[in-house]
């Protein structure tokens, strides 16, 4: 059964009273609200590690779980919605499916938050077996509720990916969705239409996202079965592999969702189109094939893991990361070079986000290299790298998108530039403290750290405060602009 393009098909029409623009705006508001709240939680944890405030160990680990699980789910929503905004017209996507998807993820997030805030569930967002079942500071019901929440997050992401992949198959076919027709002319459509780069990124995300959601479903059902029937046997190594297959890949896919947004937005600021070519097809197909195999780099310390899987995991990390990142960053630089780039909040954040992707990606590859991992494993280097590509990469792209979405044609006012600077100074200082801790061998996921952890955490708290002030100011400016421009964009609403 070839997964080829099917040509035009008759579709159910939109039957909900929700306009796409309204749905995107609502999702952005919910997402940024959650980011702000979860960022505050992160700041409180940093302050506790820096001895500025006191938290009990149980409260610290519950907050750590909330911050990690909540941020990942929120970033999935924000990047998915941003990419969907551009794919809607290209792929004839329907808003009601996005509503189902976002509702499922937000519902899952609320369930997990209730398990954590009410029940005190706190084994960390990676919920590694057997910790969720032997913790003596949280009730049994909170474990089950948390896993139901994770199940719904996976279901919401699966709904998004299924609809995306189905639409890509209808409009292009899977192979042409990856632009493989630029390499194999025999695949070329009669009308000569080639998938734009944003669709190529969507094809990769939809396929790998479905693999991730499928593995996540098996994982969570196994954990729920063990929760409901403690006699249900569980192999810890199997669970750990599935946990990282699911957790690492879903977090990783947010950067690829963001890349799809960059392909659509940067041409708006530079006035130049972003074309598809063979290099994009090869790079994204490579990432498609290897991103799902990068997870074993989390298990280097597991002596029972098969050695070939460790080596393959290391190689896959390199092969998965480099092609898409290089073509996107290099392509963006070529697009900007000698263009009449309009520097606004949106374009500034997109270009800064590319730098964050690069730095975070290199830091990740260093950590995934076995001799380095022997030294850096479970130190603050790990949160350093993922905060760099999530906070310094993905989140910058999301702010850039929000600014574009709200209307980014007017120059940035001076007072907003002050908040821009505060944001970047706060972010860089905050991330630098993580890296310094990693180099000093300070362990991660610890409520109480050895020296120089507390000192670095204290400085990091100050930078986190500056970052939050900058973010608040920027979001107020973006929100103000969105309200002002909203009425004039009603034509885009349907």
């Amino acid at each position, binding site marked *: 059964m070839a997964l080829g393009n099917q040509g035009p098909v*008759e579709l159910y029409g939109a039957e909900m009273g929700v306009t796409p623009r309204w749905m995107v705006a609502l999702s952005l508001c919910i997402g940024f609200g959650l980011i702000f709240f979860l960022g505050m939680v992160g700041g409180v944890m940093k302050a506790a590690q820096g001895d500025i405030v006191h938290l009990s160990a149980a409260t610290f680990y519950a907050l750590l779980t909330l911050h990690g699980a909540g941020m990942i789910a929120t970033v999935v929503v924000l990047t998915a919605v941003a990419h969907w905004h551009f794919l809607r017209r290209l792929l004839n996507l329907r808003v009601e499916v996005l509503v*189902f998807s976002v509702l499922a993820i937000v519902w899952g997030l609320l369930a997990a938050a209730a398990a954590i805030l009410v029940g005190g569930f706190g084994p960390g967002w990676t919920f590694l077996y057997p910790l969720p079942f032997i913790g003596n500071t949280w009730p049994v019901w909170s474990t089950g509720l948390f896993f139901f929440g994770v199940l719904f997050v996976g279901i919401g992401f699966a709904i998004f990916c299924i609809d995306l992949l189905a639409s890509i198959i209808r409009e292009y076919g899977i192979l042409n969705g990856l632009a493989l027709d630029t390499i194999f002319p025999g695949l070329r459509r009669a009308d000569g239409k080639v998938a734009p780069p944003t669709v190529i990124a969507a094809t990769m995300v939809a396929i790998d996202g479905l693999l991730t959601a499928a593995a996540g479903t098996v994982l969570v059902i196994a954990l729920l079965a063990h929760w409901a029937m403690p006699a249900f046997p569980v192999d810890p190594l199997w669970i750990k592999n599935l946990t990282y297959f699911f957790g690492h890949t879903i977090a990783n896919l947010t950067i690829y969702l963001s890349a799809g947004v960059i392909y659509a937005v940067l041409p708006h600021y530079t006035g130049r189109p972003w074309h598809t070519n063979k290099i994009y097809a090869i790079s994204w197909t490579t990432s498609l094939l290897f991103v799902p195999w990068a997870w074993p780099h989390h298990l280097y310390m597991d002596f029972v893991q098969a050695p070939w899987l460790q080596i393959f995991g290391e190689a896959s990390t390199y092969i998965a990361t480099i092609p898409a990142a290089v073509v996107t960053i290099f392509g963006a630089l070529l697009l900007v070079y000698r263009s009449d780039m309009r520097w606004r909040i949106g374009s500034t954040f997109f270009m800064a986000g590319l730098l964050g992707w690069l730095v975070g990606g290199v830091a990740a590859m260093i950590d995934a290299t076995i001799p380095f991992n022997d030294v850096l494993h479970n130190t603050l280097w790990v949160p350093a790298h993922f905060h760099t590509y999530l906070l310094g990469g993905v989140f910058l792209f999301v702010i850039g998108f929000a600014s574009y979405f709200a209307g980014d044609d007017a120059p940035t006012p001076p007072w907003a530039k002050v908040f821009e600077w505060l944001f970047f100074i706060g972010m860089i200082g905050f991330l630098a403290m993580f890296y310094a801790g990693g180099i000093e061998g300070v362990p991660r996921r610890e409520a109480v750290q050895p020296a120089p952890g507390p000192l670095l955490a204290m400085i990091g708290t100050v930078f986190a405060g500056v970052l939050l002030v900058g973010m608040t100011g920027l979001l107020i400016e973006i929100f103000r602009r969105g309200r002002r421009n909203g009425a004039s964009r009603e034509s885009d609403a349907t």
Partner: protein
Amino acid sequence: MTAIERRWPILVGLAVALIVFDPLLTGPVSPPLLVHHIEHSLILLLAGLLGIAYARSHPRRYGDPTALLGVILLASLSVLLMLPDIYSGVDAYPILHALLHLGFALTGYFGGYLAERYSPRAGTVWTMLVVMMGVITASGFGSPPPHL
């Protein structure tokens, strides 16, 4: 439509029937868990193909969101049915064992059908994913660590 295209659903249907009612022929059996999971994945695969074939022979409007919800629920159900406690409960009773197989067949059939109704070729994607989930379960779902 060629003769092969007309006849393969019949052959696949016969294969599904054979596997579903196999416990009635072989009596009480309790195969190793890995083999059992793979056997059930095979039922999901073949029944999924039947569902796809039926959906393609009755083209209607695509994109019904309720079909999408059904697809998600059936994928989750396919894993729930693989709980080893269910296996141990039915293995000694051939009729119950055959009914469990029928449950897998119906899950695969309706999953493939609904996915294909949602979008052309989505049935194929759904069936491949459910088989992948079956293979993952075979690698450790309900199994203790090897040394225990």
